[in-house]
């Protein structure tokens, strides 16, 4: 679970609870949808998701104000 947890925290934005929830839901949904549509991609999907979101927002979707 460590990897999933890390990915969630990274894409959600470190330090914010709302961000973490958002990241968790996105990862959960993606894992299930991709698992159904393209089972082979299921595990790589999280990674692709993370890369895509980091390119778009380098510090995650909703980072805490710093």
């Amino acid at each position, binding site marked *: 679970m460590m990897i999933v947890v890390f990915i969630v925290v990274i894409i959600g934005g470190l330090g914010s609870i709302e961000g973490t929830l958002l990241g968790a*839901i996105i990862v959960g949904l993606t894992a299930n949808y991709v698992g159904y549509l393209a089972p082979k991609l299921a595990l790589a999907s999280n990674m692709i998701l993370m890369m895509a979101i980091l390119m778009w927002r380098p510090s995650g979707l909703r980072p805490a104000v710093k």
Partner: protein
Amino acid sequence: MDKFGEILHRFGGVNLLPVALAAIAFVLIGAPSSWVTLTVAGLAMGMMVFLMASGLSLVFGLMDVLNFGHSAFISFGAFIAASILAALGGWLDGGVILASAALALALVGAITFGLAAGLFFETVIIRPVYRDHLRQILITMGALIVSEQVILAVWGGTPFTVPRPAFLEGAWIIGDVSIEIYRLFAFALGAVVFLGLMVLLNRTRIGLLIRAGVENREMVEALGFKINRLFIGVFMLGSALAALGGAMWAGYETLITPALGAR
């Protein structure tokens, strides 16, 4: 483009991502019943992962400490809850009240462990290496290695079957849509925890301190608050949430191995 962005922002901005995701998936999947099942599963999984991840995020935000040993709390939570459920096996078939009691005991057991382990971790493992990121990563990684070995030593390497209370077994069938009850339970629990955290952070003085501490630790100290106590509290809370998430995950998977945390 700007206008579009503005409209998007008004309706929630990035919060809409899951909705967009669900909409795209709906088109791609085609079959509404499978889509509902998958969405519920995704939301439930999301909520459990949220439980596990929220502590990590909070601890990082407040203390600037990234605990690579966080997943040890998840694993321990899973195994402790599973062991308690297995030990109370007789209760699980003995009606809703007894089964609920067993479930509650299992979750409380995991949470209690998380609190205690968090206290230990914060004071013994992390306190000496505050503000030294390199050593922090190394130390918490070392702690993770040791924790995993302890789990292997205590529970052995073989998969462990997790009994579930009878009332959480099975699924609701609405038309041709089937929804596993455990998933609903996981979602509800996650939502309650999230709301609880939001109230704690936004409506209480402790929460105010945490939010202030995330921004500027020194200034919180200069206003006369001992941030170390806050750290310990938040760390314990985070560990307890991870253990709770692990416990829920154990019930979801129903078969757990010591490799659970590391994957």
